């Protein structure tokens, strides 16, 4: 369903652009972001209209079904217009040794996540919140930490949908909250983070076959950094290995690399999708967060390039210097 939704979103956003390639990982991440959006819609219904969690769950299933059907119909319509969408192929074979090392690092990290005891991250109340949602069948009807009625959380906190996401997933798939929050979600975040970094590597090194090896070594170095940067609570490694369920981890590991990729590739709509997704999972400054800052920074650079009067700013500078020589 994630790929299906993602492909629909991707087709919608690509429209008639020159990018005729359907990237599997871009599809997946777009679907992931679309999923966050649908969960957020169901969550906000529960928050603003005082609906039970069961109602939100049914609403989510309905919205997801509608999104998937719409995506399928849209893709069928687009394919009839012969958009010549095709897949890139053959990139993995050229970089087999690097790919094997990467898979080894990935397997080691999944093993680490699944076998180490869950750390108590300061300020993280996800498990308590999910348990209280499950018991009360409501959203913030009782204090997650004490279980007693309370005055309610700030609106900017209540609109964040991740606890509702995990509660609905626990209920839908009959998984214990500790298993979902401590094991399943960190593995999902880890794999999606690598998908985002793989896309970014295509932008930095080129998408041609001969660059596949560099791209996989890039992922290996990213994986090693995840392992080695887990001492600081603010580092991605700590978030990936010990707090993969947190909104800040999803933002730093998935949304930020994807927004950089989208902005550098001038896929502005996808970058805006990241900004919206961040607003749904992390406390932001009225919807503007890190993704917004990154997007604004790269957009300003593009505008500066245009204002200086040229499309490839650095090529022009380089050419001038070469002519001067």
């Amino acid at each position, binding site marked *: 369903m994630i790929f299906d939704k993602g492909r629909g979103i991707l087709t919608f956003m690509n429209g008639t652009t020159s990018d005729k390639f359907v990237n599997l990982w871009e599809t997946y991440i777009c679907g992931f972001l679309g999923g966050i959006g649908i969960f957020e819609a169901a969550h906000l219904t529960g928050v603003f209209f005082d609906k039970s969690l069961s109602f939100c769950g049914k609403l989510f299933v309905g919205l997801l079904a509608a999104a998937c059907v719409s995506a399928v119909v849209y893709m069928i319509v687009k394919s009839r217009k012969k958009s010549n969408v095709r897949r890139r192929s053959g990139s993995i074979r050229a970089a087999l040794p690097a790919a094997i090392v990467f898979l080894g690092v990935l397997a080691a990290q999944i093993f680490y996540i699944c076998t180490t005891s869950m750390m108590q991250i300061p300020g993280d109340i996800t498990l308590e919140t999910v348990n209280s949602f499950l018991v009360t069948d409501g959203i913030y009807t009782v204090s997650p930490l004490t279980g007693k009625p309370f005055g309610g959380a700030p609106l900017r906190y209540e609109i964040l949908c991740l606890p509702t996401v995990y509660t609905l997933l626990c209920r839908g798939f009959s998984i214990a909250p500790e298993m979902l929050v401590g094991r399943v979600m960190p593995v999902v975040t880890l794999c999606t983070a690598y998908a985002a970094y793989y896309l970014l590597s295509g932008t930095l090194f080129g998408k041609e076959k001969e660059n596949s090896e560099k791209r996989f070594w890039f992922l290996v170095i*990213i994986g090693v950094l995840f392992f080695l940067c887990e001492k600081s609570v603010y580092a991605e490694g700590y978030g990936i290995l010990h707090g993969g369920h947190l909104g800040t981890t999803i933002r730093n590991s998935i949304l930020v690399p994807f927004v950089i990729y989208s902005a550098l590739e001038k896929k502005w709509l996808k970058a805006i999708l990241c900004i919206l997704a961040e607003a749904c999972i992390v406390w932001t400054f009225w919807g503007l967060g890190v993704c917004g*800052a990154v997007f604004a920074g*790269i957009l300003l650079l593009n505008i500066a390039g245009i204002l200086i009067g040229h499309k490839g700013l650095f090529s022009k500078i380089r050419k001038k210097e070469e002519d001067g020589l």
Partner: protein
Amino acid sequence: MRRIWDCLLLTVNGFAEFITEYKLLPLAIGVLFYAAFRWKKYKNDKINYFLIYSAAAVVLLLVPVTAVFFLVYQTRFYDYGWVWSMAPLTAVIAWGMVTIVFEELPGAAAELWKKYRSKENLLRFFGIVVAVLLLFVCGNQGQFQKVSEEELRQRQIAESILQYMENDGGMEDCIVWGPKAMMQYIRSHNGKIALAYGRDMWDAKAGAYDYEVYSAEEIEGYEWMELLSSSHNLYLLEVEQTTGQIDKALADETHLRRAIDSGVHYIILPSQITAWVERKINAAAGAAGLKVAAVEVAEYTLWMLEK
């Protein structure tokens, strides 16, 4: 003005704490310096935009005055360290390592490269190994963070207590009071059980989701419970070297009475002080018309109050 000064101090202190743990920042800055000297080589404008953005973000975050802006932008909900999310340090370091190995290594080791040209993959692999070793030295050097043995042991005891309570039945409207390790585990694993106070009593960051504060009596009750549950104080009790503070706490039944009056059903206390607690809890429960039952679970006694 005062607020800006406070933010500046927070930025400076926060950076000192951040750099103590995150030692890869100098490596990222080194990669950006390398890129600054070699940028003409990169025909791809996207890489240039990526590097310029990264360099600008690092500079703006290093300078305290501009870092304050980002601190305010991300809101005070988050600590200083999270502002560094705006600089893609991981991607910069990884890009730098791969670029140096694939583009600089052949040039720098030209003679070696000519000799072992047929084994260029091996040389690149060697370059990657050196890069990983460098990251290892700058990173956590293989010393992963882990949950302490003592905390794991306390979790196992809390699980036993929780299982006993669940088997005992009557989880609805049930309130528990005990040492923070016990209460934290119980609430995390059973949403039906309420607590006398939450984790925000000792973890201020956990209280960011609501505006309520604890009363002075609740805070005193927490301090009393933690004083009596402290392993150091229990040791002094066993070797009969109690301090005045512990004697006073053992003699005090105010907090027990307040807990029972506020509707607490389960009280968890260390077994070492059962003799002192028994008389006081019986008196307090009797005054409230409640019956008391006790069961030992590992090194704690679970006191159950019922009508």
